[in-house]
């Protein structure tokens, strides 16, 4: 039986896998020690559990366990990587290269760096959401210390060419940081094959708990260091002080282990479901996929339904289907998604978009229900849309003088 509501917002967060919860539970009430307590069994147990989790996490990304720094999540890891490199490598330079479609945790951290006297170059993307490698190389200067480019985008799922990016950066002796939040656990990510020096990722996007993430920091070829952004007990090799979230870390480890084992099969299953959903919705007139369809996460789709506003569209089914829209009608700014705008979409198309994030617990019955509900709502709202009427009458909407407000 179909159980409602259906969750298709897995880029925002994921349901925790029951196997992860099971692994975590003993660490709340039985093995509750502080991993930094060296003098009694409670501490030893906790430390052992953290060490094991560190191995599980490292294995998923082809890293050494010593290269994993546990944090509170990807936002903290983004901050630690960028600010930490900026401080640590100040004598080498102050220039950072990033991309316009990054997550706010990277964009705003870079803005902070600018206030601190750093220089930031923001690369644009093409209509597919991909960067131009020549532009990247041209942007590198003697003062460049870091390239910060996300592995896969949270709104459109587009995957950047990490290996090519890191090859260019390496050639110029520049470090590579990537926000791997959406990619890790969903597609194969290998820090060595991909040439990554620092990578942020988080447990709750891969069926683990919220409030725990990691920063991968390369230890050799080259040995990378970041200046700690929080002072305290010197945990995590001095890069991130603060008592370790042992149950969270145990859950993160378990989540990584499951992804390692099941990712390949899961990606095949989800891409089939995603394609079914996408192809059915594209049967509607004037529906467009945003971003590259070839270089994309297997479980993500972002579609604009022209002449229908995204939030109004969501309202047609959001009691039963959890989705997000690129329209920001709920925010005071009324600004639609900057990611979609970076692809060159007009504000009207950006306002008309829905983001689908399928996940481990998505099944075909849910997809069939979603196709039907969305198709019906789009048709209903178009009957109500003055823009649709004008389009059908052959009126070019660009020739109308809109009352901008």
């Amino acid at each position, binding site marked *: 039986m179909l159980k409602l509501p259906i969750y298709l917002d897995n880029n925002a967060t994921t349901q925790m896998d029951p196997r992860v919860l099971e692994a975590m539970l003993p660490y709340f009430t039985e093995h509750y020690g502080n991993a930094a307590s060296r003098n009694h069994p409670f501490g030893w147990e906790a430390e052992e559990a953290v060490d094991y989790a560190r191995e599980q996490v490292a294995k998923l990304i082809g890293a050494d366990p010593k290269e994993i720094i546990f944090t509170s999540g990807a936002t903290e890891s983004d901050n630690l990587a960028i600010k930490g490199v900026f401080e640590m490598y100040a004598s080498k330079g102050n220039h950072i290269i990033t991309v316009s479609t990054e997550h706010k945790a990277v964009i705003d951290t870079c803005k902070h760096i600018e206030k601190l006297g750093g220089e930031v170059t923001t690369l644009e993307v093409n209509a597919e959401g991909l960067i131009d490698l020549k532009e990247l190389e041209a942007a590198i200067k003697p003062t460049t210390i870091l390239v910060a480019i996300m592995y896969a985008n949270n709104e459109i799922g587009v995957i950047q060419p990490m290996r090519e990016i890191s090859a260019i950066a390496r050639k110029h002796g520049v470090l590579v940081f990537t926000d791997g939040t959406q990619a890790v656990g969903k597609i194969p990510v290998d820090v060595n094959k991909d040439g990554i020096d620092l990578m942020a990722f988080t447990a709750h996007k891969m069926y683990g708990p919220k409030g725990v993430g990691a920063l991968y920091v390369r230890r050799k070829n080259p040995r990378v260091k970041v200046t700690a952004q929080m002072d305290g007990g010197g945990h995590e090799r001095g890069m991130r002080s603060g008592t370790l979230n042992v149950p969270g870390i145990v859950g993160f480890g378990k989540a990584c282990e499951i992804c390692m084992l099941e990712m390949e099969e899961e990606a095949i299953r989800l891409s089939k479901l995603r394609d079914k959903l996408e192809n059915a919705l594209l049967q509607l007139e004037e529906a467009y996929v945003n971003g590259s369809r070839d270089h994309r996460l297997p479980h993500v789709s972002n579609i604009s339904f022209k*002449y229908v*506003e995204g939030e109004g569209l969501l309202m047609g089914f959001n009691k039963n289907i959890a989705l997000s829209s690129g329209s920001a009608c709920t925010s*005071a700014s009324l600004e639609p998604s900057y990611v979609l705008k970076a692809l060159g979409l*007009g504000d009207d198309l950006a306002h008309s978009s829905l983001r689908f994030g399928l996940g481990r617990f998505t099944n075909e019955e849910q997809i069939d229900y979603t196709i039907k509900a969305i198709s019906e709502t789009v048709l209903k709202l178009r009957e109500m*849309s003055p823009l649709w009427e004008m389009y059908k009458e052959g009126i070019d909407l660009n020739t109308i003088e809109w009352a*901008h407000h």
Partner: protein
Amino acid sequence: MAYSEKVIDHYQNPKNVGTLDKGAKNVGTGLVGAPECGDVMRLQIEVDESTGVIKDAKFKTFGCGSAIASSSLATEWLKGKSVDEALKIDNMDIVEELNLPPVKIHCSVLAEDAIKAAINDYRVKNGMEAIKFEDSVVH
């Protein structure tokens, strides 16, 4: 954000969706908003020329649920009112009736603007001067 029951009801069962003959002399059309801003409302009134009473009103809206509800409600309120009475419809009445949260007040402003634009279109068509309104505060 949860919508009020009244907004949901107007969204699910919108009143007076449709199109009147915009070429007709006794029909006034107001088209406000912009696609880039995420909301466009078209509101039309049909006036009984002998009595000056609005005998029909229709809308079409591109926008969020609150924008759809605001225009649906506006058409309900317009019917049966004289053109002069219709001018007195205030956006805050719509806010109150639909329990719109602060971030959605602009939807009601848009509906008020649409009413005024439709009335002015009707006036101009019938040899009257367009009324000058102060610019809306929101937007």
